C-alpha cells in the first residue's frame, strides 16, 4: 500500500506536482497515466525518496521511505532501464544491490533466470539492447521479492514480444497479492493491464477510478448510419423521438443511445435503404486525450498552423470540468 498525501513539488516557479493525494492498493495493477511532462516520474522519484517533496508526504506501508530498513523487500522499482553502470556485468550490477540489502547471492541468479538473462549474466550491460536493459531493470526490481513494484514506462521501446512479456509479468505479480504501480502515457497499454487508474495532468489529479468505471464514463458509443434517403430517414427518426446528428464531412448520421438493432428495424419498416449501419465506440485513447487535452504541456503544432493541436479538439465532460476547476482555482 502506498499513500500519497498533498504531495507537491516545485522547481523554482514551475509546479511539477500539485497537491497530489491518492492510494495504491495491493493485489491490483494500478496504472499511473498522464501525458509527457505531467509529473509522473517526479511523483515516482518522490515516492522513492530520491526527490524531496516541497510539501506533503508519501507513506509506504505506513512508513516514510527513508525509515524502511529493508527497502528492497518493500519496494522494487524500475525507473530507468539504463540506470546501471554499463561497464559492469549484469550479474555484478545486481550483486552490488543485493549486497547492500543482504539479499543472498543465489537470489541474483534466480532473478536473472526469471527475466531470461542467464546466458548474458557475465556480459557488460552497456552492450545490452533496450529490451535486455529493461529486463535487467526488472530483475533489479524483483531482487528483494518485494510486495510493491513500481515501473516507470516499462514498455517504452520494447518489441511486441517484450511488451506481452511485461504485461503478463505484471498481471502475474499482482495475482500473487503484490501492489503494482505502473506509469505510462499510453492509454491503450493501460487498458490491457491496469485494474485501477490514476490520471494526472500538469501535476494535478484528474481521475482516480477503476478501469471499468473509466471505460463506462469515457467511451461514448453511438451508431453511424448512411443512407441515400437521408431526409426521409431523419423524418422517421424524428417521429420515433430519436435525435440524429448529421455529420456533413462524411454524409452520415450519428445517433447516441439507441441500439443498432432498433434503428435497423425502423429503417426496414419504412423501407429505407441503408448503406451503413454500424455501432461505434470511441477508443479509450480518445477518452484519455479528451481528459488531458487541457493539460498537455508540449503541444505539437501542425505545419502551417499556429494554434495548439489539442485546443481544437478539446471538448466535453472531463476536460471541461477540469478547465472549470482550474479557472476557479486561479
Amino acid at each position: 500500500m502506498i499513500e500519497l498525501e498533498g504531495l507537491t513539488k516545485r522547481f523554482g516557479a514551475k509546479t511539477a506536482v500539485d497537491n497530489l493525494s491518492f492510494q495504491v492498493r495491493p493485489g491490483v495493477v494500478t496504472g499511473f497515466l498522464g501525458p509527457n511532462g505531467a509529473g509522473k516520474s517526479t511523483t515516482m522519484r518522490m515516492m522513492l525518496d530520491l526527490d524531496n517533496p516541497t510539501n506533503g508526504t508519501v507513506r509506504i506501508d505506513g512508513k516514510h521511505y527513508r525509515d524502511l530498513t529493508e527497502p528492497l523487500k518493500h519496494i522494487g522499482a524500475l525507473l530507468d532501464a539504463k540506470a546501471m553502470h554499463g561497464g559492469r556485468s549484469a550479474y555484478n550490477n545486481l550483486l552490488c544491490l543485493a549486497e547492500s540489502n543482504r539479499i543472498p547471492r543465489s537470489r541474483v541468479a534466480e532473478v536473472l533466470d526469471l527475466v531470461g538473462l542467464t546466458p548474458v549474466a557475465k556480459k557488460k550491460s552497456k552492450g545490452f539492447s533496450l529490451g535486455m536493459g529493461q529486463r535487467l531493470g526488472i530483475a533489479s526490481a524483483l531482487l528483494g521479492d518485494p510486495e510493491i513494484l513500481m515501473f516507470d514506462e516499462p514498455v517504452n521501446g520494447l518489441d511486441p514480444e517484450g511488451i506481452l512479456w511485461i504485461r503478463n509479468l505484471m498481471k502475474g505479480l499482482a495475482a500473487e497479492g503484490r501492489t503494482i504501480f505502473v506509469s505510462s502515457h499510453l492509454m491503450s497499454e493501460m487498458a490491457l493491464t491496469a485494474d485501477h487508474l490514476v490520471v494526472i495532468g500538469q501535476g494535478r489529479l484528474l481521475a482516480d477510478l477503476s478501469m471499468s468505471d473509466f471505460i463506462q464514463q469515457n467511451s461514448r458509443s453511438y451508431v453511424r448510419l448512411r443512407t441515400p434517403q437521408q431526409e426521409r430517414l431523419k423524418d422517421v427518426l424524428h417521429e420515433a423521438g430519436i435525435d440524429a446528428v448529421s455529420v456533413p464531412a462524411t454524409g452520415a448520421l450519428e445517433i447516441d443511445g439507441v441500439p443498432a438493432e432498433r434503428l435497423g428495424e425502423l429503417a426496414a419498416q419504412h423501407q429505407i435503404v441503408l448503406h451503413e449501419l454500424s455501432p461505434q465506440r470511441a477508443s479509450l485513447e480518445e477518452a484519455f486525450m479528451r481528459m488531458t487535452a487541457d493539460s498537455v504541456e508540449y503541444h505539437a503544432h501542425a505545419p502551417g498552423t499556429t494554434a495548439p493541436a489539442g485546443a481544437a479538439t478539446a471538448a466535453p465532460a472531463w476536460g471541461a470540468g477540469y478547465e472549470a476547476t482550474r479557472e476557479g482555482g486561479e
Partner: protein
Amino acid sequence: MTATADATPAASARQDGGYSSPLPTPRPHLGHALASEWTKLTSVRSTVWTLGSLVALVVGIGVFAVLQTGSADYKSIPFVAPALFGMMVGQLAVMVLGVLTVSSEYGTGLIRTTLTAAPDRLRVLTAKYLVFGAVAFGVTLGSVAFVGISAALLRNGPEAGYHGAGEWVGALGGCLYVTLLGVLALAVGALVRHSAGGIAIMLGLVTMPPVLGAILTGWPVSREIGLTVVRYNAPMGLIQLFGLPNSGMDGSPTPSDLAQLGLLVLVTALAVTASYVVVRRRDV
C-alpha cells in the same frame, strides 16, 4: 526450525491479503554497504586502469631510478625518494579514480538505483569513502614500499650513510597525503556530480598553486602570499613528505611535515563535510 516457526505467524498475520516474501532480509547496516561498494569498485575496469597505471608509474619509474643510481646517491636523500617521481604523476590516477567512484554513478543514473536500495544516503557515502580510502592507501603504500625496499636492499653500501626510521614515516605520510587527495577528489565528485568537471577541478587544485604562487611572488604587494602558496601546495607537500628538500625557499622557514598533512586534512574534511550535507539534501 525456530526461524520458520517465527516466520509463519508473521506471514499469516497479514490481513490485507498482500504478498509476503520468503526471502530473509535482516536489517542492513554499514557492513552491507561496504560489501556493496567493494563489489562496485572491483567490478569496473576504470579501477584496474587507474590503479594499474599508479602501480606501473611508481614501481616502473621507481625501480628504473634505483637501477640508475649508486649507494652514494642516497647519502642525502631517503631510500623511498625514487618512488616520488612516479607518484607525482601517479597521484593523478588516484584523484581520477576518486572522482569516478561517485561521479560514474551520477553519470549512468545508477545513483538512483543505489539510493533506492539504500535510502540512508550518509551510509552509502561513508561506505564509498571507506572502501575507496582503504584501497587507494593500500595500493599507494604497496607501490611505494616496493620501491623503497628495493632501494634499501640494493643500494645499502657504506657510501649511503645512515638511514633512520624517520624517512619511512615520512613516506607513510606521503602515501596518506595521496590518499587524502583521492578522498578530496571523491568529495568533489559527489559535489559536482560530473566526471569531467570533478577531474578538472582536482587537476587545477594540484597543478595551479605552484604556478600561481610563483606569479604572485613576482610583485612586492603579493610577495608574502606568493611565498606561502609556494610552500604550501600539493606537489610541494608530497616532495617534502618523501624527504626531498622543499627547495626555492631562499632561506625562509620550511613548514613541518605535520603542517603540510594538516592543511590537506583540513581541506579534505571541509569538502567531505560539504559532500555529506549536500548529498543528504539534494534531489537525485
